[in-house]
């Protein structure tokens, strides 16, 4: 079976009215900071270990209509909001 990595994490699901599913999820994104080191030096901190960045994590709640696949709906929402690319 294919192991598919998900760029979000569903923490909890609850059933709301009319079959709507309420999903509590978390998602993270990287905010880059341009490198100061521009002379092509090899440094662990730059290329291999993570670069200059900050990371933002969001935990939120989304109501997913009854006829929608929960993960696909959440993915499209997060992509539209710029959390996944």
């Amino acid at each position, binding site marked *: 079976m*294919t*192991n*598919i*990595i*998900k*760029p*979000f994490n569903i923490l909890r699901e609850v059933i709301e009215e009319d079959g709507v599913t309420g999903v509590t999820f978390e998602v*993270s*994104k*990287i905010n*880059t900071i341009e*490198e100061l080191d*521009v002379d*092509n*030096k*090899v440094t*662990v901190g*730059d*290329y*291999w*270990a*993570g*670069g200059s*960045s900050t*990371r933002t*994590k969001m935990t939120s709640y989304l109501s997913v209509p009854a006829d929608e696949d929960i*993960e*696909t709906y959440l*993915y499209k929402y997060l*992509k539209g909001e710029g959390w*996944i*690319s």
Partner: protein
Amino acid sequence: MDIIEKMYSKDGEPRSAFARDSLEFSERVEGIVSQFGEQPSDTWKSISTPQWNNIYQDEVVSVVNRMIPLYLKELSPSATGRKFFLGSGRVYDKIYIMTDEATCSLPRPNGSIPLFIGSLVNVFGQPGTEDLSRYKCLYFKCDNHNTVEEWAGETLKEGLYQTFYSATFDDENQNNRLRIKSYAYDTVGPFTDWDKIHTMMKEMNDA
């Protein structure tokens, strides 16, 4: 042109990688975005020219990330990238995991030093559902170029400053070797010292 890496494989034209501060980088990102939609290119270190790959029967553009996406952290990669399959429109992330003499079970030339093992990862929402993780790329160093050529059974391009190698195996078919690549560097640059990076990372992990 700001080429920071040239990779050679006999099944395709040489592949060039461009650093993010170059005009070529921006132009090639535009091409990828026009075919595949918005991408996190501000987190990319480099982007390559397309290169034909006989395993996937497709032209593939390779990106190396500046930082590891959080959703890949659980796989403990040393580095990550993204592969764009231009013909089929598929997209896979690539992870590079540290290896060493004691743990690496993939075949390699005598006297070589295994450094990293790369494989493709399916990410939810990205086009391409086929599991390609059976194909493992072993990245290694070998001070004797002739030994690698003998083992590979083919002539390999060599760099003036440094040369590293990679072989792709099918780990669901007795590690059958499918492809050989050489990374030839004529001058020092951001991608040229895999072995030093490997040593530094091992020291960090052991600390």
